[in-house]
């Protein structure tokens, strides 16, 4: 087949591809990641490129105006290489894969956004001792007695005897590789060895046996694999200390912004492989920079503990996720056995263990189990609610006697996807807004104080709240056409409100909120609220019975609770009952890493959570329709809200 050389600017990266390859695939081959929420279906219009030289075949797209088409702009996924090409990646199309700045980390990991906060020293959650400290992988240093004619125990039994004095009479396994070198190793080290032991449920396994005393050098990693963001921490397992925290984008975003698109992509040739590598590469790169920065030997990293939604865990382990989206929505596994990290492609000690937090169902994963663990809902006498707001909103209701969960497909509106000027919570995203009700002057703050590039979820919540209060948006979520103001104007798709005029923003086009955005937004908030309300109703309880509401998720960190209640996203309860827990998934994974007891508790929690399928519940549609209003069709549910 003919080959074409595609040169990507401004990177000046060249790549040789078959003729007829889409520019999106070519860019990926060149390791340039483009925004592509739809996974290459030509629907999202985010992978815009400028073809500067060469011949292409471009499928027509409604996302590209005739003028733009004339100028050479096209969608990378809908444009096929016909000859050697020079292609410029437009700045807005690039998926910014650089590690998040410190401010953004603070945003994701702490309750409330505070730019000055140093997350690396904050050590959230470590202060309180909930579970007994006993890491999943422990290292013991033994000065074993040498065998003699009175003590002729075999080498392995000798090691096991010493280990079992530490851990009790639990079954103890090890691998052949350890056995093969054991005799020589024990004698060469004068019977002074360090043994690392991993807990695998009721069974233990000797992972490594090393000469000398290495018992103080034992490190673990925790990762929260989100659909959008991956967050990781390096933890000193002997000191019980978080050494470093990092966050970056999930590179799978190139293959689609939501899990369904990715599951579909996994069915394509090499799709599963690509998705798997996208996430494993991120984890390995993060691990490498951790060990560089903290002068840790890779071999001393003995354990990785991962939480994520069910699809993310399947893709990490390269397990076909297709059945997750096919009725009756059964995953390959909710409880993943402890496996060797190397088998999943993770680069730590080759014998190191990989723990995946157990999930509940296809759409309620280990990240939620972790959240319940870290919020301690399973210990509470009072009724508590956990809302993890993301593309898929997960909700858990319960107490120390019962737990019930559901997943609501909110769509990516709160993460800035599918919105005209939407942006994830990155630098330059408008995160808080006030609108003067008379003059309609807009004041805003952006993450990092940068020039505004778009609006993130918390920014949208503030914005809609303010516009509702100012009468610019009606309770139905429509812009008021009767109002005349320079910020309100007709647009290609209805009507729009100008939040920031282009020149001010350093952009060619204005930052706007459209009727279509409001529709998406309304549906997203309705999905979350109605799911929570339905769970409460299903249990024949009242929303007022909830004593504590935990709001989790990267989005939940800078959320203004008044605004969230005002638009009807979360129930109207006394404000002191709300707690923002930031990344409860990572916190839960870390607790598991540091405590076998927590791991056992986590298994029990996953087993105790009842999964409630919303899609088959007749009342859900009604709840949802009632929630498609600001704040709600039944205003008596939001007594504190007036507009």
């Amino acid at each position: 087949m003919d080959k074409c050389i595609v040169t990507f600017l401004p990177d000046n990266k060249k790549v040789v591809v078959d003729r007829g390859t889409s520019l999106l695939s070519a860019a990926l081959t060149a390791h340039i990641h483009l925004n592509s929420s739809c996974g290459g279906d030509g629907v999202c219009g985010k992978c815009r490129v400028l073809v500067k030289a060469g011949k292409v075949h471009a499928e027509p797209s409604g996302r590209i105006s005739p003028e733009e088409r004339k100028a050479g702009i096209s969608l990378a996924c809908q444009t096929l290489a016909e000859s050697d090409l020079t292609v410029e990646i437009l700045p807005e199309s690039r998926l910014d894969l650089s590690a998040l700045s410190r401010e953004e980390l603070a945003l994701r990991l702490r309750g409330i956004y505070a730019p000055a906060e140093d997350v690396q020293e904050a050590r959230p959650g470590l202060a309180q001792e909930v579970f007994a400290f006993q890491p999943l992988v422990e290292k013991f240093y033994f000065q074993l007695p040498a065998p003699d004619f009175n003590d002729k125990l075999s080498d392995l039994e000798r090691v096991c005897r010493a280990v079992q004095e530490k851990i009790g009479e639990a079954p103890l396994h090890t691998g052949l590789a350890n056995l093969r070198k054991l005799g020589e190793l024990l004698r060469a080290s004068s019977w002074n060895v360090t043994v690392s032991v991993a807990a695998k449920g009721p069974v233990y396994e000797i992972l490594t046996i090393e000469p000398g005393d290495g018992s103080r050098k034992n490190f673990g990693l925790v990762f929260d694999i989100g659909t959008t963001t991956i967050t990781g921490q390096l933890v000193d397992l002997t000191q019980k200390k978080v050494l470093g925290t990092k966050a970056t984008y999930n590179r799978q975003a190139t293959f689609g912004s939501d899990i369904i698109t990715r599951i579909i992509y996994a069915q394509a040739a090499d799709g599963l492989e690509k998705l798997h590598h996208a996430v494993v590469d991120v984890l390995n790169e993060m691990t490498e920079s951790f060990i560089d920065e903290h002068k840790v030997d890779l071999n001393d990293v003995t354990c990785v503990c991962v939480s994520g939604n069910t699809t993310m865990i399947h893709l990490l382990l390269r397990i076909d996720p297709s059945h997750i989206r096919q009725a009756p929505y059964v995953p390959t596994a909710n409880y993943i056995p402890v496996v060797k990290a190397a088998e999943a492609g993770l680069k730590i000690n080759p014998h190191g263990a990989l723990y995946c937090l157990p999930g509940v169902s296809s759409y309620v994963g280990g990240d939620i189990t972790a959240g319940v663990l870290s919020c301690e809902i399973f210990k509470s006498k009072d009724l508590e609610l956990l809302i993890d707001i993301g593309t898929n909103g997960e909700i858990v209701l319960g107490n120390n006697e019962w737990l019930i969960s559901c997943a609501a497909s909110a769509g990516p509106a709160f993460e800035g996807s599918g919105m005209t000027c939407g942006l994830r919570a990155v630098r330059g995203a408008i995160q808080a807004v006030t609108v003067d009700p008379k003059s309609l002057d807009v004041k805003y703050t952006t993450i990092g104080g940068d020039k505004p590039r778009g609006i993130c979820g918390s920014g949208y919540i503030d914005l809609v709240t303010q516009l509702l209060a100012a009468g610019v948006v009606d309770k139905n979520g429509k812009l008021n056409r009767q109002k005349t103001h320079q910020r309100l104007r007709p647009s290609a798709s209805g009507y729009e409100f100008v939040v920031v005029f282009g020149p001010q923003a350093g952009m060619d086009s204005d930052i706007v909120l459209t009727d279509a955005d409001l529709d998406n937004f309304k549906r997203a908030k309705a999905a979350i609220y109605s799911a929570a309300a339905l769970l409460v109703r299903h249990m024949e309880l009242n929303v007022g019975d909830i004593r504590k509401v935990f709001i989790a998720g990267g989005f939940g960190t800078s959320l203004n609770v008044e605004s969230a209640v005002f638009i009807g996203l979360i129930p109207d309860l006394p404000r002191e009952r709300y707690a923002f827990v930031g990344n409860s998934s990572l916190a839960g994974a870390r607790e598991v890493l540091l405590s076998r007891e927590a791991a056992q508790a986590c298994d029990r929690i996953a087993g105790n959570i009842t999964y409630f399928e919303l899609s088959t519940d007749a009342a859900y549609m009604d709840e949802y329709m009632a929630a498609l209003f600001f704040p709600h069709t039944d205003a008596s549910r939001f007594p504190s809200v007036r507009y």
Partner: protein
Amino acid sequence: MAEELKLVTTWSQSVHEMQLGATRQEGGSRKAALTVGGEGALPFLFKEGALPHKPLIAAEIFDVPQDDEPEALRRDLKGISGDPVSWAKAMIADAGADLVSLKLAGIHPDGANTSAGQAVSLVKKILAAVDRPLIVLGCGEAARDNEVLPLVSEATKGERLLFGDAVQENYKTLTAACIADGHNIIAESPIDVNIAKQLNILISDLGMPANRIIINPTIGALGYGLEYAYSIMERARNAALSGDKMLAMPFICFVGQESWRAKEARVPASESPAWGDAAERGIMWEVVTAMSCLQAGADILTMRHPRAIKIIKSEIQELMKRP
């Protein structure tokens, strides 16, 4: 009744009363005003609460001739349906309708595309010819209705007519006109109790008093989703009687329009001999649909066939006899 109703529910609220038409003293020109709503109980359960007003029948007429009129209607309305004014008069005088519902189908840009001026003068002529309140409906094309209906509203200021239909996507213009000119408004929702309530809130938010809004819950004829409409009306009325102010509006049901759209009302006997006489069938379809709507709580029924109107009118009289 041999068996007495033993289970009596006490309700906390009544449906709003809506006045239709304004007399000379009230600033209009109607001979008498009509009132609907005010129910303090479910339909015809006199033991549970007051049911002060009988349901009304509005005769459905059109500004321009309808070319898809079913055989039975065409025959029985022959001679009158060509002229809306005499049609209106006949339906009141001969068929016994309480009021008239005029659909301005002709203003549709894809239809006859009659002018706003024509619409205004027709409405005025009908008001002059019949002394009853009038229901004025747009053609359903949002932009055109927003042009024409405000002009009709303005020209009939003070008559306290009923204008429709306001829908969730297009309610502001009509609402503003009705508020300004003292008319009532029909709030149409697609067989959805939530949207019905949402629209009532939206219209109220613009300043329209709750007692000037009537709910069009959208019905289907017998065999075409009537049971959905029934249960939506039942739910809304239960909520209203239980204290939900934003659902405590009377109902208007477009019975004629829906019934005569049913296949069973249209197919001639020559095509389906087993179904029997087409005219009788159509009339019965309209009657059964209307009766069901009454049982669901309808306050105004709009109907087409003179005989169906007569039958329902006498049934209403029977049903409204207090035990």
